[in-house]
């Protein structure tokens, strides 16, 4: 039984499911570090997912679709940046409005472009980068180890690897560059940043746009790498779990990635556990709860009191 649960695909599946969460969570981290709460991640991801499919259907090139998803994320994030930075409105209200807007907008555009809501036509998905052969139980210890390594590390699509690289690069940039120093200061003490002559508005705008680009990329991963078509509301709450991952990861890019990996692993594990539902007679709802229970436990127990950037959620008024 254990051998059926602890399989190479369990870990590969965790990586796949962590990817959209991680990209959005890193976006959330950068945004919040600059002092802007971004609960619009869900809606931005949905718009990215849609734009990716729509452009791929129109031009037939999935990589242009990825680009479109990123740009769509940036455009939607710009609305959030404008209302929360320039107009100094409540950032949670603005984010909520964008989430509702995204749901309506994607449904509306489907009606206009394809004449029906629901699901779009399918596009050819982006294939894994490597295609090495390996067989489970293919004989010999070395062959078995190679199968595990191949499945866990080399079976993935490009954006899965991109997410890992982005997590490391952003972590480095946040703590080793001037931009990173300014970013962290923006969220802790914007007045200090202003005093040394760096524009708070500009710094926050850039952070919000980066978070939009990353959430858009997360959407592209869902539609262009994982499933190949867009369905209304297909993000299914991933943007909100990403927010939790950002907090669990203590507002750091690598931490966000790690937290997303944990949530992805919980989800992958519940699927494997469901396989034995018949033998242990537990309703599937129990397993479906697991990732969410884990989220609650982690946030309440393990993380404990986590302190976000001091100035997060507070509009900056030049004084």
């Amino acid at each position: 039984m254990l051998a059926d649960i602890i399989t190479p695909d369990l870990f590969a599946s965790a990586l796949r499911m962590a990817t959209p969460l991680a990209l959005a969570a890193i976006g959330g981290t950068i945004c919040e570090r600059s002092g802007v709460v971004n609960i619009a991640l869900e809606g931005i991801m949905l718009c990215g997912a849609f734009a990716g499919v729509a452009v791929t259907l129109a031009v037939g090139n999935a990589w242009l679709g990825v680009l479109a998803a990123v740009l769509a994320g940036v455009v939607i994030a710009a609305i959030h940046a404008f209302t929360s930075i320039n107009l100094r409105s409540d950032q949670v209200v603005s984010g909520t409005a964008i989430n509702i807007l995204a749901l309506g907008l994607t449904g509306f555009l489907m009606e206009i472009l394809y004449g029906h809501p629901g699901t779009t036509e399918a596009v050819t998905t982006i294939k894994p980068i490597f295609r090495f052969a390996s067989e489970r139980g293919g004989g010999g210890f070395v062959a078995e180890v190679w199968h595990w390594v191949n499945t866990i590390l080399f079976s993935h699509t490009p954006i899965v690897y991109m997410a890992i690289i982005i997590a490391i690069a952003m972590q480095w940039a946040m703590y080793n560059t001037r931009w990173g120093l300014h970013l962290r200061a923006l969220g802790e003490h914007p007045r200090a940043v202003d005093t040394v002559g760096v524009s708070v508005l500009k710094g926050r705008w850039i952070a919000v746009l980066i978070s939009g680009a990353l959430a858009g990329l997360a959407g592209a991963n869902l539609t262009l790498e994982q499933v190949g078509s867009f369905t209304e509301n297909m993000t299914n709450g991933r943007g909100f779990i990403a927010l939790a991952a950002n907090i669990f990861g203590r507002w750091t890019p690598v931490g966000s990635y790690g937290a997303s990996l944990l949530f992805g692993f919980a989800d992958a594990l519940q699927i494997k556990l469901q396989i034995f539902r018949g033998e242990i007679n537990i309703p599937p709802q129990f397993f479906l709860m697991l990732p969410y229970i884990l989220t609650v436990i982690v946030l309440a127990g393990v993380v404990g009191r986590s302190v976000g950037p001091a100035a997060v959620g507070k509009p900056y008024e030049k004084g």
Partner: protein
Amino acid sequence: MNSKTIRVLSVLLALVLLVAFVPGCAKKTDTGTGTSDGTTPPKSTVKAAMVTDVGGLGDKSFNDGAYSGLQRAEKELGVEIKVLESKEITDYESNIDQLATAGFSPIFAVGFLMTDTVSKMATAFPDTQFGGVDEFFDPVPANVVGLNFKEEEGSYLAGVVAGLATKDSFDSKLNSDNVIGFVGGMDIPLIQKFEAGFIAGAKSVNPDVKVISLYAGNFTDQAKGKELGYSLIEQKADVIYAAAGQVGLGTVEACKDKGALFIGVDVDQYETVANSGDVMLTSMIKRVDNAVFETIKAVVDGSFPGGTIKVFGLAEEGVGLAPYHDFESKVPQAIKDAVEKARTDIIAGTITVPTAP
């Protein structure tokens, strides 16, 4: 917030609401004034309408099925037709109210979730006739007919195909392990009918077969459907049947990717899911279109079966299997014969199919 902010935000919100509701109120009106081939259709004073579930038109499933039943009635019976789409669960009542007030009868409410609304509106509009697709009433109001399907019977046939195919090797995607899979949307009685029928059918022809059932917990998360498919294939399942709405589309992707056969649901998914021909073995089809058409026909003939639940099973051709399409020449005659035998046995009553696993 200062007043300028509030003003701008309210404009933004108004824009949001506008965009969100425009599709909900959009057109989709067809009038029975003529057909495309130029022949004059028979005239009828009956005005038939339907309210979709939140999946809406274009779901490539039962909402589209009900709509094609309406279109057929427009063409063959000359009735006037109209469709209103529900964007939210809260749209059900206003949509039905709007149609009933405009004099439409019968009005079809498509989907289990509209059951309570139909009961309520049937009391409010006693002279309007209602058809509830997938809805069960107890007792049934005199102006309502419940249109139910024996999904378990069609799924039994799907199980027979899967149970025999996994032992066979007519396609390179079939392995030597005796395992098949089922993907469900939510663990509710309706989906359990699919699961129970599928398992019973598979075991009837292959008693040792291992059937693994996984649930997604929703009907829209395709990425989850793909992961469920991967897990089943890792467990050596080589034929997978999905009754999970859009989640099943992700499972199709997993089958294409890792090499397994897929059995579709509700409609002939070979026709609706692009590039799925090399994995789509067959589909369990639910003839919502027939049920809707027959009901409209009964209204036109003055024999509306109000106050009853009409159940469409194999005998009524309300459920069944789609063609094998690309697998037509590959599927051995023995499997086709076994399906035919199961079909006749179920219709004759010698096999009773369970409705819960």
